[in-house]
């Protein structure tokens, strides 16, 4: 069979450059059902990368509204959004549509802890852009038993981390935590929003760190849904922009972790 190639046709294909990766599977990516939890600084960047990468079915959960100080690091928020105190999940969903009309984002305004636990089963993959340990542990406790890959991102100033939990094997998010996590589990590490603990001098999100962390999260999500688990991060990616360090860290499964009871 003779294939006809038109000069310049590659430039008309929105996903041509992604397809050149070789392993990128557009059908799987566009069909994947993604749960994005958190629509703050990191959630904005992750949503941008998802939309541009070809993800379409993205459900965005966030309880907060936009305020002026978000605007230095949140692509999809505007001054008008801040003036109207618009829900972050809605602003992000609208922004994804602006970037890619094929997207079908679904905003849910509310706390993830208030979502029905069975909601997780609707999704193929979960991306966490949260600002509290309690919320992370809640998502982790839903995702791991439901065998959903959970990619969690966290930042503080110039330091960022991405952890990939790949049930049924390997460590979950909780396995890497210790007593210091327990002491602050209920606190929110955010610069804005309800119930915020740290305003100054803590710096929860810094846009260049946010960009690095979000890029790694979405890249790992692309590997998962394209069917290449062998390319995934083993455990955690750690980034320190001040020291110019980025590396993979090893976190062992903890048989004492409630999600792995009885395993060794």
């Amino acid at each position: 069979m003779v294939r006809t190639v038109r000069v310049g046709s590659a430039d008309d294909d929105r996903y041509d450059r992604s397809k050149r990766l070789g392993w990128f599977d557009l059908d799987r990516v566009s069909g994947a059902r993604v749960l994005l939890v958190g629509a703050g600084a990191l959630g904005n960047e992750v949503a941008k990368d998802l939309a541009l990468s070809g993800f379409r079915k993205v459900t965005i959960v966030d309880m907060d509204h936009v305020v002026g100080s978000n605007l230095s690091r949140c692509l999809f928020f505007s001054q008008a959004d801040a003036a109207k105190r618009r829900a972050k999940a809605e602003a992000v969903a609208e922004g994804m549509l602006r970037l890619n009309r094929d997207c079908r984002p679904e905003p849910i305004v509310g706390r993830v802890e208030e979502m029905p636990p069975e909601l997780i089963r609707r999704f193929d993959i979960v991306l966490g852009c949260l600002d509290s340990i309690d919320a992370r542990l809640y998502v982790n406790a839903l995702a791991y038993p439901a065998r959903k890959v959970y990619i969690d991102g966290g930042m503080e100033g110039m330091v960022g981390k991405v952890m990939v939990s790949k049930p049924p094997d390997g460590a979950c998010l909780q396995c890497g935590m210790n007593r210091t996590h327990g002491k602050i589990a209920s606190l929110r590490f955010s610069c804005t929003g309800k119930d915020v603990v740290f305003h100054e001098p803590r710096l929860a999100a810094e846009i260049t760190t946010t960009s690095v962390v979000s890029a790694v999260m979405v890249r790992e999500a692309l590997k998962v849904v394209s069917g290449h688990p062998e390319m995934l991060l083993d455990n955690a990616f750690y980034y320190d922009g001040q020291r110019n360090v980025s590396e993979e860290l090893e976190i062992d499964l903890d048989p004492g972790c409630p999600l792995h009871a009885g395993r060794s």
Partner: protein
Amino acid sequence: MPVRIKVKNAETGASVEMELETENTIDEVIESAATFWSKDMGAYVLRKGKKVLRGGHTLKDAGVREEDVLELIPDPEGG
């Protein structure tokens, strides 16, 4: 049995020598080091090379030996 190790502060490059018992836990080392450096309230982990040490493990369980250098790193939780 006493063991002397060095803990490095990833955020400042400073280090401190600690004299510990092999039955001391990683949690105790993290808290002692964080207190010594007056760290902000937050989550921290201790690493040995690329491995993140489990908080509840004793130094013996974690395979920490005399003259080991461990690093205290912040575990970022913001989003």
